[in-house]
């Protein structure tokens, strides 16, 4: 137990973006100025990104108190009052974690994980350490049963038993496809070869998802431990982590973690005294979405253009440098220690018949509580959107949720009761994908969203196979036409035909799933396409070419703010007289909208 008070600042990328470093320095300063003897440390993302910067204070014998949205100017005070006077600032406190006594007046502070609505329905297995340990100090991981699973596996189990246990747990790949991990391990174990590899896919290319990043930044050792267990099971002595280059902090922490694990002999030669060697390297990706696809990723590690190749042979037979290779996602490996710590039966008791365990989701879009949530499989979309994420802001009305990023689809309001598991999502035309959940309100245009995702996949297509290279381009052209008011009546049928053809004939998952966002929006929101095509209207008020900016003369009080804000001088009018927008000159940049206090500027469709 800590004898000194301990202060923990959330310094994941999100915490840093919210000003975490300033907060950290302000605390240092306050401690020095007031001669307070306390331990100041950092941790990764606990998931409540909405409330960053998060600061936790734990005095010996008391529960840990979490404060949220603490500005640097105030944090010195909050810390000093808490530590010196035992006063908890009501302005910033979020909840308490752990055992201990508090002065009676603070009894009502909610218990963080049990009583805060954001956490009530979560079950944090994979994220068990995120927000609790300093990811740059291996001892903190070890203190929370870190590397216990590896020890147990190496000292008490045969490789076949390890594979059997993973099979029994029902763990399926968290990287998108949902392939049973135990089977994959078994294939690699049984494959002939003097040399085998373990590869961790940390490419996380889905634009709007950051689960893997948070795990790597907040708890890198759990991934290393999972990989070492896999290495023991399949008979590999070398592994690679292929990490997205846009995640510099994750790369740094991974490298540090590997170094520390080697020092402690959790990696390296004769691990824990056994006849088992395992070494790890980090490879930085170079920014290509298609490199998330497993065969492309392996090409990229080999120093080539990351282009997928047909399967079979699967990597389990012929992978990295043509050797049998077991490739899994970050979250998949992060779950492996849990399987062995808590037992396969426990793991399999969570979730649904076909999808076991939990899944981490990145919640973004029009919701009150954005952040990372780890929920049991089978939870309904309704529960995630309303109970965990707190619904839409203001009186916003739910329209759809986009699941699975560029390979996924949009699920409409009627399906709010849908359980989130691999099979239900696929049946609805979407897919689990990486775990991005983007919640959309009535002000989101579904045609625009479809075009957005297709723009992304189209530009990321590696160009190797024709359906994906040419087909997505043609689909995108049609969508562009529709969103600019040039749509034709046959376009809807054309999109469906093209989409089906691309899905069924593309070489890799990128092309096979690229039409999903278009096909699901057509399936559930065809009327919106029709309004764009036949009435030349965008009901959500998003597609700029179908909108005009106009000033309501009744509401305009002639303050000239918009006149000054307009970068192209398209607004005119005398002081105290209603102003007018020259729609020919207007470039629809939104600057006037932002400036107007009277809400007199309207978007007309």
């Amino acid at each position: 137990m800590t004898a000194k008070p301990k202060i923990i600042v959330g310094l994941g990328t999100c915490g840093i973006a919210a000003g975490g470093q300033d907060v950290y320095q302000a605390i240092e300063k306050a401690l020095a100025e007031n001669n307070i003897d306390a331990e100041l440390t950092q941790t990764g993302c606990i998931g409540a990104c909405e409330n960053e910067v998060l600061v936790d204070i734990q005095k010996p014998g008391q529960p840990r108190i979490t404060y949220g949205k603490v500005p640097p100017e105030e944090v010195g005070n909050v810390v000093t009052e808490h530590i010196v006077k035992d006063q908890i600032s009501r302005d910033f406190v979020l909840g308490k974690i752990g055992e201990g006594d508090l002065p009676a007046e603070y009894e009502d502070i909610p218990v963080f994980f049990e009583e805060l609505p954001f956490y009530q329905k979560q079950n944090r297995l994979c994220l068990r350490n995120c927000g609790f340990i300093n990811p740059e100090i291996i001892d903190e991981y070890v203190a929370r049963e870190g590397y216990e699973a590896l020890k147990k596996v190496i000292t008490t189990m045969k490789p076949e038993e390890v594979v059997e246990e993973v099979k029994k747990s029902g763990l399926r790949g968290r990287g998108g496809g949902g392939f049973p991990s135990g089977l994959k391990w078994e294939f690699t174990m049984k494959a002939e070869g003097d040399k085998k590899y373990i590869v961790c896919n940390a490419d996380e290319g889905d634009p709007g998802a950051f689960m893997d990043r948070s795990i790597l930044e907040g708890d890198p050792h759990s991934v290393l431990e999972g990989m070492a267990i896999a290495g023991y099971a399949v008979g590999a002595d070398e592994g690679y982590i292929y990490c997205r280059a846009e995640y510099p902090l994750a790369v740094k922490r991974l490298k540090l973690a590997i170094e520390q694990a080697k020092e402690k002999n959790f990696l390296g030669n004769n691990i824990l005294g056994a006849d088992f060697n395992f070494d790890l390297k980090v490879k930085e990706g170079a920014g290509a979405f298609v490199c998330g696809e497993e065969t492309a990723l392996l090409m990229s590690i080999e120093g080539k253009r990351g282009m997928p190749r047909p399967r079979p042979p699967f990597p389990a037979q012929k992978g990295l440098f043509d050797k049998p290779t077991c490739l899994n996602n970050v979250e998949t490996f992060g779950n492996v220690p849990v399987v062995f710590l808590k037992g396969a039966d426990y793991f399999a008791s969570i979730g649904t018949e076909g999808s076991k365990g939990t899944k981490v989701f990145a919640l973004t879009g029009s919701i009150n509580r954005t952040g990372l949530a780890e929920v049991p499989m089978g939870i309904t979309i309704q529960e995630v959107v309303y109970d965990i994420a707190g619904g839409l802001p203001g009186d916003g009305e739910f329209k759809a949720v986009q699941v699975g990023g560029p390979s996924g689809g949009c699920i409409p309001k009627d399906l709010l009761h849908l359980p989130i598991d691999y099979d239900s999502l696929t049946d609805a035309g979407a897919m689990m994908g990486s775990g991005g959940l983007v919640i959309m309100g009535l002000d989101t245009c579904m045609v625009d969203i479809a075009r957005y995702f297709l723009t992304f996949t189209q530009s990321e297509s590696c160009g190797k196979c024709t359906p994906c290279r040419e087909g997505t381009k043609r689909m995108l052209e049609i969508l562009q036409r529709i969103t600019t008011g040039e749509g034709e009546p046959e376009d809807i049928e054309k999109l469906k035909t093209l989409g089906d053809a691309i899905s069924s004939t593309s070489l890799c998952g990128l092309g096979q799933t690229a039409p999903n966002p278009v096909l699901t929006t057509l399936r559930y929101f065809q009327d919106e396409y029709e309004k764009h095509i036949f009435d030349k209207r965008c009901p959500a008020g998003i597609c700029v070419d179908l909108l005009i900016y106009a000033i309501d003369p009744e509401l305009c009080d002639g303050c000239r703010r918009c006149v000054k804000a307009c970068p192209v001088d398209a607004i005119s009018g005398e002081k105290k007289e209603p102003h007018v927008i020259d729609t020919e000159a207007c470039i629809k940049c939104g600057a006037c909208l932002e400036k107007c206090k009277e809400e007199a500027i309207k978007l007309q469709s």
Partner: protein
Amino acid sequence: MELLEGEREEILNKVNEIVKGYDDNRENLIPILQKVQMGIGYLPLLAQEKIAEALNIPPVDVYGLATFYNQFRLNPPGKHQVQVCMGTACHMIGGQIIMDSFERRLEIEEGETTSDREFSLERVACVGCCAIAPVVVINDFVEGKVSPLRVDGIMLQLQEGKEDSNSLEGEAEDKSPEEKNERGNQE
């Protein structure tokens, strides 16, 4: 882009120094390109040829990689690098408008560098700060909840930093006093 005076030497020295740290194994190509780009800021053709020579592979293999991956730049970056997030959350809340605003202010298009090499403008797909969308990354510093007017503010700050605000006085004066205050508050 034409190489400036003395750049040739600098490039050759840098490449030589970096290549020395690796054995000539194809697997090292991407790490070498990444290191060279970190050192020089981009991958001039000259550097690509030198790397090919060192690894004993055809130059086209190096060029093929440099053009395949989004991370690699063939043009020098600006002194200030502006990256606008075009991830899903940022798109939904107006990322394109922010990109348009920068394009207008800088008079360049996405992917380009201003002719004085002061600014370059790029898109990125999700920097993982979706909770504060729309997001712009300026010289590795993440700025959240950006609006078109804030773009003006950011530009003003960057340009003031550059020339002690002289060149921009005229423009700043145009703004009403309350706007100046607003900007002050945001800092």
